[in-house]
């Protein structure tokens, strides 16, 4: 294979540049999440099926991640004019409300969830001994999924990026830098993208949004033998660091879905990463189309390897989900509400046929 326009050597050079940056310059970074203050949010998802045909079903994701250091999913409740129940996929335990309507004129469901979240930051200068990853989890988070193969072009690309790196940290960092420097956020990508990383690499088109770019990170990391996982969720609040692109603009967060990623390093445990958000900063932060050496980009890039801001809700880590009762195929990931009528699965990104709103409200803890 060839690397075409992209030069993986750039990744190494940039990493060295950041490492060589004086501590004082890094300290000036405007993006520096630090844990310590839990925040609580209530999220209401309301779904209307505009053109019901025959039996209608819907699957609405609910927060189902519980990580002691940074996220707590509380119970979800719902009201509906159909029948509904809370279900979980068997493999990843991703939760969703499954609703059904038999010939209802106006299928409606409103799901209310509460979560607590806080900033998350790993001190990468202080390696320790993290809790070991269970064998089952290691297998789960290194195996391929339908859209994240770990062989073929993904493995070849990963091998070239990792090169002679010997430690997991070096590998994880090299892959992060490579994705940051060789991908691009594409404003015209619908939703958050699909995340078909083999297609991206084969076509040499590494553009997309978070579900594309962070899936690329996850696939390349898994191909290098590092446990890694996408975390599918939604932004619930503005960024307190002044990054308009990394937060919500209002309480209505219907289109604020965002997928992040984690990589497991034995000395640190699960480490948060988000190369896709670095590309979002580059594309969207004023005056737009920033360069890699713009201070806003440098700060975001430094922060988004090892930390996340707690202005975001995590739904699940799931891939290839079987939706109970569905006629359609496996779902690559569950970040958007889904629905089917007798005409088939609706396009969750088409507001003409599938209307839903998601509203977030911050509550006191």
């Amino acid at each position, binding site marked *: 294979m*060839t690397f*075409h*326009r992209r030069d993986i050597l750039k990744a190494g050079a940039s990493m060295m540049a950041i490492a060589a940056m004086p501590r004082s310059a890094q300290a000036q970074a405007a993006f520096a999440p630090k844990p310590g203050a839990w925040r609580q949010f209530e999220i209401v998802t309301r779904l209307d099926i505009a053109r019901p045909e025959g039996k209608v079903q819907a699957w609405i994701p609910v927060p189902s991640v519980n990580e002691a250091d940074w996220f707590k999913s509380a119970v979800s409740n719902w009201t509906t004019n159909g029948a509904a129940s809370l279900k979980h996929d068997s493999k990843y335990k991703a939760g969703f409300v499954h609703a059904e309507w038999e010939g209802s004129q106006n299928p409606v469901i409103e799901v209310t969830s509460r979560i607590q979240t806080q900033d998350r930051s790993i001190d990468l200068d202080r390696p320790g001994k993290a809790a070991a990853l269970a064998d089952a989890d290691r297998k789960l988070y290194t195996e391929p999924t*339908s859209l994240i*193969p770990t062989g*073929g*072009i993904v493995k070849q690309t990963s091998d070239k990026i990792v090169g002679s790196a010997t430690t997991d940290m070096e590998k994880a960092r090299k892959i992060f830098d490579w994705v940051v420097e060789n991908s691009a956020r*594409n404003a*015209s*990508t*619908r939703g958050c*993208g*699909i995340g*078909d990383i*083999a*297609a*991206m*690499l*084969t*076509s*040499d*088109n590494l*553009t997309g949004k978070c579900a594309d770019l962070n899936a690329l990170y996850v696939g390349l990391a898994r191909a290098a033998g590092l446990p890694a996982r996408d975390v599918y969720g939604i932004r619930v609040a503005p960024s307190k660091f002044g990054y308009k692109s990394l937060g919500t603009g209002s309480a209505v967060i219907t289109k604020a879905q965002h997928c992040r990623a984690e990589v497991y390093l034995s000395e640190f445990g699960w480490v948060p990463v988000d190369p896709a958000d670095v590309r979002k900063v580059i594309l969207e932060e004023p005056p737009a189309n920033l360069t890699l050496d713009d201070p806003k980009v440098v700060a975001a890039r430094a922060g988004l390897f090892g930390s996340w801001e707690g202005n975001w809700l995590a739904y699940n880590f799931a891939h290839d989900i079987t939706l109970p009762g569905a006629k*359609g*195929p*496996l779902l*690559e990931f569950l970040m958007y509400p889904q629905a089917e009528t007798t*005409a*088939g*699965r*609706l*396009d969750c*990104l*088409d507001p003409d*046929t599938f209307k839903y709103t998601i509203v977030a409200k911050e509550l006191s803890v």
Partner: protein
Amino acid sequence: MKGFCAAVVPCQKHALTQSARQLQIVTVAQAVAPAGRGSHFSSITSAIFGFSLALCAGFACCSLAAKAAAIESAKLTVWTGGSKPAFVLDDLDKTKVSFGPPALETSSHEVVIVHFFATWCEPCREELPALRRLAERTDSRRLRVLTISVGEVDARVRNFADKFPMNFPILLDRDRTVARAWNVSGLPTTFVLDRDLRPRLFIERDYDWDQFDVPDFLKSLGSAKQSDAQTTRSVPTFDTTTTITTTGGKP
């Protein structure tokens, strides 16, 4: 042989019109050289190689930078694998479209293009208009184009087709079964098949179908058959009854 390709392809990319067409013919002839001779780089015959060197000398204007860029440019590659499995897929009207046996009638199409794409795939969206133009300027009795949307919900593909009408069927590989069976790993991916539905060319990225000419391709197929006959290499067998049919569907 890689040196040849690296020098010629930039010329294809940048030297338009007649020169480009001549070069394309060479590429097609290369691509349909007898199967089983390794990669598309190594399968070219010595005669074509000599002709190609002459062409390269004539296009010395191609810069190294252009060469580097053009290595990336799309080129059809000879298919050296076997035949592809049959499938039955719905089109957007839920009409069943079959590829391969069971045959109901012998296909009259001399060339069949099977094109895998997705509406989210930007190179795919850029490529489809050229495929449409190819279908427009080619006798529909000679060329059959089947496009296959991979892993998408019907509604999304239907919306796309409404906005960008095509003059060929869009089939729905909703669960990627056909893409997997055809070992499609990236999008877009396209196979050019002969009248017997044997793949002859393929490409795993977008391609400028304005460069493709069905008569030239058929001519090169004839050359390849002659070449086959002059060698002792056995020709792969294939089911001559395979065909593309449409059945069922909405009233």
